[in-house]
């Protein structure tokens, strides 16, 4: 068995495979099964501030609909209070920490300054091993500048770092003018690691009903190239760790990410498609790949990052030109 241990966010991991945030990781049984299947850590479903606020408001509205309106009934549901805030996730964190030995990472998506801080504190108190800030921010207001957006990310990170002691990861999208600079700036501002990349769910239009489709499309291996590029570019230049996310379907993608320099590799879509047992396929597959080469993880990690390549141009513009020139219609 090769040594596959690694670290991400300062957490010692037995291997680089992490089950990232999805409905699967909301369930304690799944979390246990993932640990059994070899996952090195789990990220719990994102705590969405506005979702919590909205759910609480909806619950309150439904609970009190018709209340104090008629003589015969002062309400229509038993007075069970809705635990406002990320109650369920906090509970899952607490119980998961008791149930499994692997790190349990919380994911947070806030909308207000107070929300980020309150929830981050709550997640830490519940026992999260680390917090992943899922800054899902679509600057739909055209008057916002790139600088504004970058400042927003920095503000959130700095604020959260001020109130929690556990490691903090930034989960980012690729849509910055200079993603590399953004990551380095955040790195300098104290981020303990990065998850590249967040996929913004993008709308589509159903031409039959003429409605906006908001369905979720799972990622495919074809999408790994963008994160592969940036992880490869950034590997070795940061204080914090790098986790790859997007398009991990088979062990091939796992290995590719590791080769370009990822400290950890996350997967969601494959688990949603094939079930939590698929984690074992990935872990075993990685072990087999390393075994076949008589290598440990450390031997191959970042071996193909830009910094380690003899031809770093593979990651740059020259590479693009070569690809274009080499392309032939099939």
């Amino acid at each position, binding site marked *: 068995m090769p040594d596959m241990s690694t670290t991400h966010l300062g957490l010692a991991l037995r291997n680089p495979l992490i089950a990232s945030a999805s409905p699967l990781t909301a369930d304690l049984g799944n979390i246990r099964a993932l640990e059994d299947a070899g996952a090195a850590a789990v990220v719990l479903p994102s705590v969405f501030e506005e979702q919590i606020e909205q759910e609480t408001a909806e619950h309150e509205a439904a609970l009190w609909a*018709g209340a*104090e309106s*008629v*003589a015969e*009934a002062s309400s229509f549901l*038993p*007075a*069970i209070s809705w635990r406002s805030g990320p109650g*369920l996730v906090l509970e899952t964190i607490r119980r998961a920490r008791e149930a499994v030995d692997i790190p349990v990472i919380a994911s947070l998506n806030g909308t207000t300054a*107070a929300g980020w801080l309150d929830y981050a504190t709550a997640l830490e108190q519940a026992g999260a091993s680390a917090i992943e800030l899922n800054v899902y921010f679509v600057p739909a207001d055209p008057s916002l500048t790139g600088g504004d957006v970058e400042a927003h990310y920095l503000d959130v990170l700095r604020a959260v770092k001020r109130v929690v002691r556990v490691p903090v990861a930034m989960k980012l999208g690729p849509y910055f003018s200079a993603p590399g600079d953004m990551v380095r700036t955040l790195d300098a501002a104290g981020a303990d690691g990065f998850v590249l990349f967040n996929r913004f769910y993008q709308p589509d239009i159903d031409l039959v009903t003429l409605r906006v489709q908001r369905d979720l499309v799972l990622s495919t291996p074809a999408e790994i190239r963008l994160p592969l590029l940036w992880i490869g570019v950034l590997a070795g230049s940061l204080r914090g760790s790098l986790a790859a996310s997007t398009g991990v379907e088979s062990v091939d993608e796992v290995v590719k990410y590791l080769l370009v320099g990822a400290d950890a590799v996350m997967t969601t879509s494959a688990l949603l498609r094939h079930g939590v047992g698929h984690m074992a396929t990935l872990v075993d597959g990685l072990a087999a790949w390393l075994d076949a080469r008589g290598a440990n993880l450390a031997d191959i990690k970042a071996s193909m990052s830009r910094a380690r390549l003899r031809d770093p141009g593979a990651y740059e513009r020259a590479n693009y030109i070569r690809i274009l020139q080499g392309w032939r219609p099939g």
Partner: protein
Amino acid sequence: MSGQGRRATMDGNTAVAHVAYRTTEVCAIFPITPSSTMAELADQWASEGLTNIWGGVPVVQEMQSEGGAAGAVHGALQTGAMTTTFTASQGLMLMLPNMYKIAGELTATVFHVAARALATQALSIFGDHTDVMAARGTGFALLSSGSVQEAHDLALVAQAATLASRVPFLHFFDGFRTSHEVNTLELIEDSQIRAMVDDDLVRAHRVRGLDPERPFVRGTAHNPDTFFQARETSNSYYAAVPGHVQAAMDRLAGMTGRQYHLFEYAGDADAERVIVLMGSGAETARETAAELRRRGERVGVLQVHLFRPFAAAAFLAALPASVRAVAVLEQTKEPGAAGEPLYQDVVATLAQAVATGARATMPRVVGGRYGLSSKDFPPPLVKTVFDELAKQQPRTGFTLGIIDDVTHTHLDPDLTFRLDKPWLVEAVFYGLGADGTVGANKNSVKIIAEDAGLHAQGYFVYDSHKSGAQTVSHLRFGPNPIHMPYLIRQAGFVACHQFSFVERVDLLRLAAPGATLLLNSPYGLEEVWDRLPRSMQHRIIELGLRVFVIDASHAAQSVGLRGRTNTILQTCFFAISGVLPKDEAIHEIKKAIEKTYARKGAEVVRRNFQAVDETLALLHELPVPRHASSSWERPPLVPDSASEFVHRVTARMMEGLGDDIPVSLMPVDGTFPSGTAAYEKRNIADFVPVWEPGICIQCGQCGFVCPHGVIRAKYYDESRLEGAPRSFRSAPINVRGFPDVRFTLQIYIEDCTGCGLCTEACPAHSLLAPETKAINLRDKLPLVQPERDNLAFFEALPINDRARVNFAEVRGVQFLEPLFAFSGACGGCGETPYLKLLSQLFGDRMLVANATGCSSIYGGNLPVTPWMVNAEGRGPAWSNSLFEDNAEFGLGFRLAADKHLETASLLAQRLAPKLGEELVQAVLNAPQIGESEIRAQRALVAELVRRLRALDEADARQLLSVVDYFVRRSVWIVGGDGWAYDIGYGGLDHVLSTARDVNILVLDTEVYSNTGGQASKATPLGAVAKFAAAGKRVARKDLALQAIAYGNVYVAQVAMGGNPQQTLLAFREAEAWPGPSLILAYCHCIAHGIDMQQGLRQQDLAVATGYWPLFRYNPAMREAGANPFRLDSARPTLKFRDYAYNEVRYKVLAQSRPDDAAALLRAAQQAIDEKYRLYEDMAGWAHTRFHPAEPA
């Protein structure tokens, strides 16, 4: 150990439940207004693990009826448990048989009763003592409380006394007036409760229980030789009761300082005139007597606490010897008696005292009735009685608070009389049920009483509607205790939280001179004055009111409290009502905010503080002009064309002036005209449907699902459009071969609740603007006038001929006139579309027996009635008997109809030679399934009637009285699941077994909706409901399969939102089947915790997940050699959670008890899978595997 307890504010139900719960081990419950809250609290506390005084959590068990609860109580008592129950009214009636048993067996228990009227000429949920009086023969001791504090205290006294005496106690207090009044009280500490309950007696009670370790037999049957003697054995126990009660009262006084007596006398020691009464009225009487004594009158009040056993000696000791005239006032009516019960006791006691020499003279004793059905009992009525007693010949058998211009029983009150309480602040608030006014006011009462240290009282009056109900909150505050159990008559503060009320209600009827008026107005200071009717302007000037104006919606938005207008208005109340000095008031409200929001963080608290400050900046005082300037007046509530009855009775009730209607105008037997809901035009929706003829496919879905019958369709010849208003919309009818026919969908926007179900049901989208459907909700205000014109034009168009309408399709049904419309049901109600459909299909020949519940309330709670009459003068004939007996009640309709038909047939045959054989045979043998056949039969019957009228003989006159029965009567037995699955199940089951042609429609909301969502046996596994706060642990009963087992019952399960066409088919098949039919109709409900606009979607999901499969079992198919069981819905495509977790009733469990919820969800899914497999199997069976049918 004596001393003051913790001060709290709560209603009477809570105050009683607080004690009852702590002193019980077993509690058997069933919901009934106004006692439900006590049972709900017991269930909730048990689910939260709150312990009784012995450290255990009481067992709280919901039963299927009050009869069942009493049986379970009896059983638990006979097994030695400290046991209690809560009930009222009809519920108490169902407990009576067990109460005789429990008392006969000398068993210690306390039943807590929120006393309420019994249904007589009408049902009433409100308070009086009629129910309790019907229990006075049971052998229970009857102990009466008159206030929230008393109810709290005497609940404990009753418990102590029943243990000591072994005589069971019925502890009662006034329904609503005490059960629902929020007031300040001193709580008895748990240690004090513990000290009041003697454990030796508890153990003695336990030892008397059945126990195989020391067996005995109890509950034997006696013969004439011994029964009588055995019945007399308990005399000494009853004789000892007064002593035990007084001893318990004395012990309580020792601990709390609050001393009670069996008969509480207050007044002049040498009083000449005394009023004797029970219940909350005693507080009013005492305060009035005190005022009169200040004015030099020698009067007093004797309040009866222990009514049974009647302690004559204590009564005589309490009544001053000087009394020369006594008035006994009672909240009950015993028709035909020499006087009401307490009156008779008082007369007999005094007469015996005089006869035995215990009393020197016999005072004159008169009796009077007051307060039936919570009729208000203010001080002027008390003074009137004292004045009457001062007369030489005071009247007896009088009534108070009504105008009896028929038998002239009433006493005329001096309405100018007022109690002088300069320290008191009285405030009334007009709001809508949905706007949070009541909730905010309850909160204000709590803040002022518990934090600011004042005394406070809140009482809340609701109108009869479930949607858009008007609420009037009556709040009193002051430094002294408030013993005023009657409505405010002159308020120093009047708040109008809905500006539209200025057009509908006399808002200043209760305003005192110089009062402050707070108007929530969308109009600013410049405009608002002109928006008030002239009479209101006059009153404002005349009374010298100060008027404050705020636009609460705007303010809420601008201070960041969007939608929370109640918080804005509450802040205004604190600032300007004078209940506290302004700064202190604002300080208190901020303290309350801090308490509420502290856990949400400092930022939230800060924002709310800021909102308070900003609100005050948006509150402005209106400089009141010196003259009224409006040129308009409040419009009449009903049109001139309405009947005299509607003008004189209905309209006055609608205006809130029902108290002024005299006896002579009231129907003598509870009969009221149909269809008066059409007059209400409540205008409660801000957004209403607007039809887009160009997009519409005329499918009829919108009208089909409309809960309030406000969407109507007609087709008509194009030429009829002449003279149509410009805004009148129409489209060519989309049926081939009718090029000159137009189609119009007309919305009754002033009757619409704006629920939006129609827009959800509409399948037609604009091709270019997909957000636009063929029916869309739009701002109502600009539409009101044009739509009035359109409606008038639409109503003048001919009603489509029923014989030409295709009843078999949803599309066709839209042209059938609804004869159930404009009810006060909740906006988006899931029940009423089914009733409306029934009325469209069979309304003109339909009898409806309606079980008590939501459908009887929106179907028959005055002032108006939604069951209507068609242009031919026909319509559903509707009645409500009780909750428990509805199936039997409806069967009675059928039995009578069958008998009348038999009589008519015999007479017709006898008269055939004179009437024409051919006609008679045609009438007797007419097929009457299709509407065209019904129409043909009506024509034949009309001819028969014509010929009968020409005959002058007895048989002809007899036949005329029953001739209408030749047109097939459609008997519908309608009710909710509480009735069908629980309280009325035995009767329903029996009726199904009779093979009679009745149709049973179960409006299945899966809870007792009317009383606030308590669990029934229809409540699904895993759902939370009241009485199942920890989630229902047992799957719902499969009533359909039970009925199918009979073989002769047509059974259908329908969900309009899942498949409206199947619903329609089932209704028609059920009605056509000549035996019993049972339809289980899924009704989404406010008690499910859903956005009601999504109700149809939830129905669809219920079907798609297999939770609510659609099917029909038609015995006629078996007779035809086909499988009678048709599964109409497809195999489940979704999981149960996809449906369930859209509803708070399921979701809340996943949040509060995630493991339980997950396990229950799995169990529910398994049950669904299995059940569906079974249905699928059945759908594949050979017809011979089903029980053969034997229709009547």
